[in-house]
């Protein structure tokens, strides 16, 4: 080897890279979505890990999943019903509120744990490559696992109140897609932002508390927005309202969903999903730098 190679380069540090070299991240849904699909096994492992780690140490185990909606239902039934006159359309109030609580709990658990998922998984984020959206998506799956357990309780309530779900329940999958899309969109959006604004985590739980009352969970949509003219706008702002209202109509009342409410909610959901994913991908390049 010639001596020249072995002597250290003494060149001064260049001040900055030329601007034409700057790295630009292109966001291509056509490439990132298949990548997400290829990572499905990872999502499953992560969700499984979350579920196991959560319930391995907890004394009450899987029953925690049910406790939150049940306690809220009891609280609503015992207190709220006495204070306010709530029109449930001949449906027992516990059933009425529980059907609202299921999608709400799913949403709030997803947003709460999914929003923090990147921060709490920073040990992975920093050291292993994977499409980053697997973390919030896995949190949504964990919340879904909880939701399945608490849906079992709903079956129990049907037996207790000798109330059979109506045939129109066949609409449930349509509403569920809407619910899932909105939840994933919000979760992605918030999880990306929380990495940069850590104290948003604390704010998140307060916002979710407020959201519980801004959504027709304890009461019907007509109780919040009496004027039918404003209801579509309300549902565009809060798609969960349309979803919950829809569930109650199809499962408990035997009526089809109110499409004039579902349609604006669907539009918002698509927008939120798109926005959430784009923002997430935009922010993704810096996650490992700050996490």
């Amino acid at each position, binding site marked *: *080897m010639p001596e020249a*190679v*072995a*002597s*250290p*380069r003494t*060149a001064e*540090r*260049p001040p*900055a*890279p*030329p601007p034409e*070299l*700057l*790295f630009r*991240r292109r966001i291509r849904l056509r490439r990132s979505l298949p990548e997400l699909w*290829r*990572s499905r*096994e*990872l999502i*499953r*492992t*992560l969700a499984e*890990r979350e579920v*196991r*780690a959560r319930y*391995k*140490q907890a004394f009450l185990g899987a029953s925690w999943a049910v406790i939150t909606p049940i306690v809220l239902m009891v609280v609503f039934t015992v207190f709220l019903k006495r204070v306010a006159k709530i029109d449930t359309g001949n449906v027992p109030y516990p059933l009425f509120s529980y059907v609202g609580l299921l999608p709400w709990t799913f949403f709030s658990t997803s947003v709460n744990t999914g929003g923090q998922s990147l921060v709490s998984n920073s*040990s*992975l*984020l*920093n*050291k*292993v*490559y*994977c499409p980053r959206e697997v973390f919030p998506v896995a949190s949504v799956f964990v919340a879904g696992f909880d939701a399945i357990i608490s849906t079992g309780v709903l079956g129990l309530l049907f037996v207790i109140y000798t109330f059979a779900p109506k045939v129109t329940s066949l609409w449930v999958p349509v509403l569920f897609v809407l619910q899932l899309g909105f939840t994933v969109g919000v979760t992605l959006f918030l999880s990306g932002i929380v*990495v*940069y*604004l*850590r*104290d*948003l985590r604390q704010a998140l739980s307060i916002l979710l508390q407020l959201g519980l009352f801004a959504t027709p969970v304890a009461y019907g949509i007509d109780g919040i927005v009496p004027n039918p003219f404003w209801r579509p706008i309300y549902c565009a702002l809060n798609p969960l309202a349309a979803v919950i209202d829809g569930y109650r109509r199809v499962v408990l009342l035997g009526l089809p969903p109110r499409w004039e409410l579902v349609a604006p909610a669907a539009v918002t959901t698509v927008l939120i999903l798109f926005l959430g994913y784009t923002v997430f991908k935009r922010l993704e*390049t*810096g996650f*490992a*730098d*700050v996490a």
Partner: protein
Amino acid sequence: MSLPKGSIEVDHLWKRFKADRGKAQIRDKVARARSRAAGNKADRGWRWALSDVELKVEPGASVGLFGANGSGKSTLLKVLCGVMYPYAGHVEVSGRIGALIEVSSGMHPELTGRENTYLFGSLLGLPRSVVARRFDEIVAFAEVENAIDRQLKFYSSGMKMRLGFSVAAFLEPQVMLVDEVLAVGDASFQQKCIDRMRAVLNEGTTLVFVSHDLAAIEATCARGMWLHNGLVQIDAPVSDSLGAYRRSIEESAESAQAAGGPLKLLKVEVGGSGDEPPRTQEPLELRFVLESELDEQGLLFTGVSEGTASPIFLITRAVSLTPGQIEVRATIDHLPLPRGRFYLWLGIARKGRGQNLPWQPVTRFDVEGGLLDQGPQGIVRLAPVHVAVEWETARP
């Protein structure tokens, strides 16, 4: 896309970090925005972690990365495995990457070793069936058979690292990135890891290996890259670049030499017999001139090293220090060093405790003569001692 599997191509890579770290709070962002709005430009504090790094690796090649702490080695590795994104430049790594960036990276303390193995496998993008096929091998290599169903938080850090390394090494990556993690393992496992890395290399995997253990780099890598402050100092065959790195450590140690003190070294001379330079298996003469303000007994110890503070051999001699100049000479009849550059270290201990002259490098010298026989790369690192030997083979 056009690159063959297992190759790495890094072009003009730049990466920077915020100089004020760890302030991802809303009020900090607000404060920053306000100061920027007030026309304060000084707020944009960035620190370059990597500047203009170039690295091209062919499939199956091996590169060792070394340099002082904070020189950007781990950042480069993180950019390579896709965890971090470059600020500028182009990075392409083709093929499946097995990365071990840190002990227990990608592992969860609440899960058992078994569950973690599968988790790590899926992080590498492998289906469960592949992990299941290699599972026994992984566990056997990591020597954690008895603990595989124990939660990871009850593992020792050595066990975690062993499991992590085995998963990364056995799941057939096309590019393997290993950061300074072997240090956690005990000596026998370190050797095992180095053997495994060499085996993986033989299977055609590309290896990028970061370590402070220069001998381990020498044993595994054909090419060495020295990073300093985010700049590539040297990218050359491993012996050349390690040599340059060792010399630079030496020089900085020399310049850090303490002056002053009650005992000063005025002069050092190293030479062979007569005016000849030092030669292998021939006499070596050392001469020190000291100036002392002390009047006491001391123990002079001097040794030869390859650059580090640990000497290859050490010779000592009791000296009585008296105020004024003292000359100490030593002759080594048969110099047991092969051809190369060596460093002379010197220290003087006080009778009882402490040191009058701290252990420090005092000079360097070149030895001429016998080159060591090159053994298979990595089985023995370049041995620093030259032994005169008579071989005989016969049929009994």
